[in-house]
């Protein structure tokens, strides 16, 4: 295992210290338990939006903490959901009296830990709600699975709901908006390589030179199918088609296209893939009105990509365009 780290056991805390040093005006970082909050929290009278999950997906979530997006993030151990105390600590740091919305990606561990935290917070009298995002079309949502995973759509949800909270939309409004985003966003991912969790020391899976893995999540877990590697046209088609069919997206729909790198895929390839996706969508008459291209929800150094498509309405566009100032996403501020 080759990593720029000192000790696998302290990677998350060591990294958070670096993040604190890098963004002194923007963030307030604690490591026991690990919480990254915006420096000016709590913001009185504003719904606080809190998310969290395993580390290793950076910049998600801590890179999205700041005005116009998250009030706090709870980074767990690498690929391990955070514990309830972290979530509780985050909630108590950022609750500005207008309630707290927890954004939870649909994984058993995340759901259980956030649920426990919400129970504990409710017992203390806070108005804490949670929404569970499950946008990954690679997983069949049925009685026979833990349901679809939360992946790329999370980034879009956090931006849009964060902007609404910033405009003092109340907790009911934020929750309803979050559910509308969840209902309208779909994603699918693929990998060319696995990735190595520091405390494991070996790749979670390995692919031969001529193989790719389709339908992966974001935890280095194997995907739904292993198949011969294809060129960019083939890969993008395999990601986009199930996404389009699932909602389904229709001719004339307006959309936000998010082309995401799993971490190790260079920007030159990502833009290339993005261009293909734009062309395929144009052919179907889907109007891409906003886009995001880059590594925003990753699996450590994994090479691969995901495509997320969000069906837009006017309110979502306005909220997407609203100012945001975080370590990883910033505009208008």
């Amino acid at each position, binding site marked *: 295992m080759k990593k720029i780290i000192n000790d696998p056991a302290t990677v998350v805390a060591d990294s958070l210290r670096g993040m604190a040093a890098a963004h002194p005006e923007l963030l307030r970082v604690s490591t026991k338990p690990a919480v990254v909050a915006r420096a000016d929290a709590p913001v009185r009278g504003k719904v606080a939006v809190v998310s969290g999950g395993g580390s290793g997906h950076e910049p998600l979530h801590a890179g999205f903490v700041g005005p116009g997006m998250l009030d706090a993030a709870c980074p767990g151990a690498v690929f391990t*959901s955070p514990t309830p105390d972290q979530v509780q600590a985050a909630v108590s740091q950022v609750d500005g009296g207008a309630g707290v919305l927890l954004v939870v990606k649909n994984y058993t*561990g995340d759901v*259980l830990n956030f649920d426990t935290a919400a129970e504990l917070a409710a017992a203390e009298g806070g108005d804490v709600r949670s929404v569970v995002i499950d946008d990954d079309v*690679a997983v069949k949502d049925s009685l026979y699975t*833990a349901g679809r995973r939360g992946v790329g759509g999370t980034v879009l949800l956090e931006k849009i709901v964060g902007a609404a909270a910033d405009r003092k939309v109340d907790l009911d409004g934020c929750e309803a908006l979050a559910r509308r985003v969840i209902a309208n966003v779909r994603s699918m991912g693929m990998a060319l390589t696995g990735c190595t969790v520091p405390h494991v020391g070996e790749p979670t899976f390995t692919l031969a030179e001529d193989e790719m893995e389709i339908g992966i*999540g974001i935890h*280095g*877990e*194997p995907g739904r199918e292993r198949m011969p590697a294809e060129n960019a046209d083939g890969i993008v088609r395999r990601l986009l088609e199930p996404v389009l069919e699932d909602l389904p997206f229709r001719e004339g729909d307006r959309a936000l296209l998010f082309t995401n790198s799993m971490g190790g895929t260079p920007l030159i390839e990502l833009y290339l893939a993005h261009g293909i996706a734009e062309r395929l969508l144009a052919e179907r008459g889907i109007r891409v009105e906003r886009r995001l291209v880059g590594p925003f929800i990753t699996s450590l150094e994994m090479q691969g990509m995901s495509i997320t498509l969000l069906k837009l309405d006017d309110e979502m566009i306005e909220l997407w365009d609203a100012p945001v100032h975080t370590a990883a996403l910033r505009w208008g501020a």
Partner: protein
Amino acid sequence: MGCATEDVIAALRRVNEVIAEHRDELVDLDREIGDGDHGENMRRGFEAVMSKLDMSELDTPGAVLKLTATTLISTVGGAAGPLYGTAFLRAANAVGAATELSAGEVAAALRAACEGVVARGKAEIGDKTMVDALQPAVRAAETAMADAAALSAASAGGSTSAGGDGVPAVLAAAADAAEVGAESTVPLVARKGRASYLGERSAGHLDPGARSAALLLRALADAARKAAGGEAP
């Protein structure tokens, strides 16, 4: 003679040792059908339990179990954290303020623990989870209890307690059954947890959580036997 506070602490010490010894095995199992963290999560959790226990003065088995529960919840994370946390919490509630646990109380605590896991995780037998180890263990423990009770009723003419040396037998039965149950997950297709995303590809692998549950029960059984002065069978 039942199972006293220091016996429970000793048993958890043994659990910590066993989990640490098997950390890499659990990591590898979880890499195959999950995300590779289960061994590290469990190791981190029980190591934290050990330091918490070292720092605390506790006078009942229930208090020990409760501290274990809250420590696991706040340090393990992932799916296993809340599930094992709930298990220990329910076990703590089941044993109440007793200062020494009878075999019957141990079996009841096991049942409560397993029911807690099911309540939280909604898994059924056959879903390829730790429940596949825990549920057979509970049944085996209760059968062992009933056997022991019947035996002592027959021989000693209706003693009210199943006897302190029932605890090793109950836990040994539980551990045996948990191991069989864990093995039974190999051919299964997962329907809960992260492995369910793999669909058919999850078949052919041992479930890491079922394996850790079996290891945990085996450690408890070993500790109980040692406390009762028993040797390796």
